[in-house]
C-alpha cells in the first residue's frame, strides 16, 4: 500500500481541466460573457470609508471590474462613484443587492441597464436580512427571466452544486457561489462543495462572499474557482489599500498553485533527500 491515498482529513484540491479563456487557443485570461479579463479579482464597492479610499483600493487590487448597487439618488449629487470607475478604467458591474424577490431583481436589472448602458448584471436575490443567503427559488426565476431578456447574468448563489448546475443550464454567464455569508469573513465553509461546483461547471465560477483574508482568496482559486469577488474584507480592513494588494497576490498565488499542481497529501513523511551515498560515521 502506498501512503499517497487521499486522506480523510484533507479535502481534495481539484485537478480538473482549466476552463479556457476567450481565445480558445492559448488564452490564460478569465473570460466571462465573451469579455477577457487580465485580473481574476472582482471588487465590490460596499463599505468603503470614502470614494478616495475606494479608488486607492481599486488601483492596488489590480481589478478590472467592480460591482455597484442601484439606489435612489439625489439627482444633484450623483455621478462621483461612476467617475471613480471611469478614472480607474474599471468595468462597472451593476448588482441587485438588497432584492428579496425575482420581480424586484428583474426590475433593478432593467433600471441598471438603462442607467449604465450595460446588459451585465450581478444577480443577487436574498432570503432574509440576518444571513443574506440566496433565495434559490427566486434566484432561478429571476435568472431565467433575465437570460431570456438577453442579460449577461452573473448569479450569486449558495455553495450548492445542483443549484449551480441549474443556473448554468439556464444560461448564466458565471456562477458565483458563496464561501460563507456576505460580510462574515468566515472564509470557505464548504470546500468540498465548492470543489464539486468547480469540477462540474463549464462557465466561470467566481467565489463571491465570505472572504476574510488573502489565504481565503488563494484557497478559492486552488479549489478551482476562476475568479474571486470580495468587498468587505478590503473596504473594512484596517488598511484597505494594503489588503487590496494582499488579495491581488492571494488570487494570483492560488491561480498559479492550481496550475502548477499540488503534491498529494500523505500521512507520513516522504524524504526528498537521497538515501544513497550516506556516509558511515564509524
Amino acid at each position: 500500500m502506498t501512503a499517497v491515498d487521499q486522506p480523510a482529513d484533507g479535502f481534495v484540491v481539484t485537478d480538473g481541466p482549466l476552463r479556457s479563456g476567450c481565445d480558445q487557443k492559448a488564452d490564460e485570461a478569465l473570460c466571462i460573457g465573451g469579455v477577457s479579463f487580465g485580473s481574476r479579482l472582482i471588487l465590490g464597492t460596499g463599505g468603503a470609508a470614502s470614494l478616495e479610499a475606494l479608488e486607492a483600493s481599486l488601483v492596488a487590487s489590480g481589478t478590472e471590474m467592480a460591482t455597484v448597487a442601484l439606489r435612489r439618488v439625489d439627482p444633484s449629487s450623483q455621478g462621483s462613484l461612476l467617475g471613480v470607475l471611469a478614472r480607474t478604467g474599471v468595468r462597472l458591474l451593476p448588482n441587485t443587492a438588497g432584492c428579496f424577490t425575482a420581480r424586484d431583481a428583474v426590475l433593478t436589472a432593467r433600471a441598471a441597464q438603462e442607467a449604465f448602458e450595460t446588459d451585465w448584471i450581478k444577480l443577487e436575490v436574498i432570503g432574509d436580512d440576518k444571513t443574506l443567503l440566496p433565495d434559490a427559488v427566486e434566484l432561478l426565476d429571476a435568472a431565467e427571466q433575465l437570460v431570456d431578456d438577453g442579460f449577461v447574468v452573473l448569479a450569486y448563489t449558495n455553495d450548492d452544486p445542483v443549484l449551480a448546475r441549474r443556473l448554468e443550464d439556464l444560461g448564466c454567464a458565471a456562477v458565483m457561489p458563496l464561501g460563507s455569508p456576505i460580510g462574515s469573513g468566515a472564509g470557505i465553509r464548504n470546500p468540498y462543495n465548492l470543489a464539486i461546483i468547480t469540477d462540474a461547471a463549464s462557465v466561470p465560477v467566481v467565489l463571491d462572499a465570505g472572504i476574510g483574508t488573502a489565504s481565503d482568496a488563494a484557497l478559492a482559486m486552488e479549489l478551482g474557482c476562476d475568479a474571486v469577488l470580495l468587498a468587505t474584507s478590503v473596504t473594512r480592513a484596517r488598511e484597505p489599500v494594503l489588503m487590496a494588494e494582499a488579495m491581488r497576490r492571494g488570487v494570483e498565488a492560488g491561480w498559479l498553485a492550481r496550475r502548477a499542481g499540488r503534491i498529494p497529501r500523505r500521512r507520513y513523511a516522504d524524504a526528498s533527500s537521497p538515501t544513497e551515498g550516506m556516509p558511515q560515521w564509524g
Partner: protein
Amino acid sequence: MRLVLNGAERTVDGAATVAGLASSLGLGASGVAVAVNGEVVARSAWPATSLHEGDRVEVLGAMQGG
C-alpha cells in the same frame, strides 16, 4: 406637477413628461434610470412618456454596495 419622487411628495415644474422631469431635475445624460409606477422607462421613451398627478417616480443611480 405633484409627484411622489423617491418616496417623498414633491411638486416639480415642467414635468409633463419624463424628459421634462429629467430636465427640471438636472439629470445627467447617463448614469441614472427612471421608473414610473413600478415600471422602468427606457431613456429613448422619456420624451413620449407622460406623467400624471400623484405618479410614483423613482430616480435611481449608482451607489457603493454589493
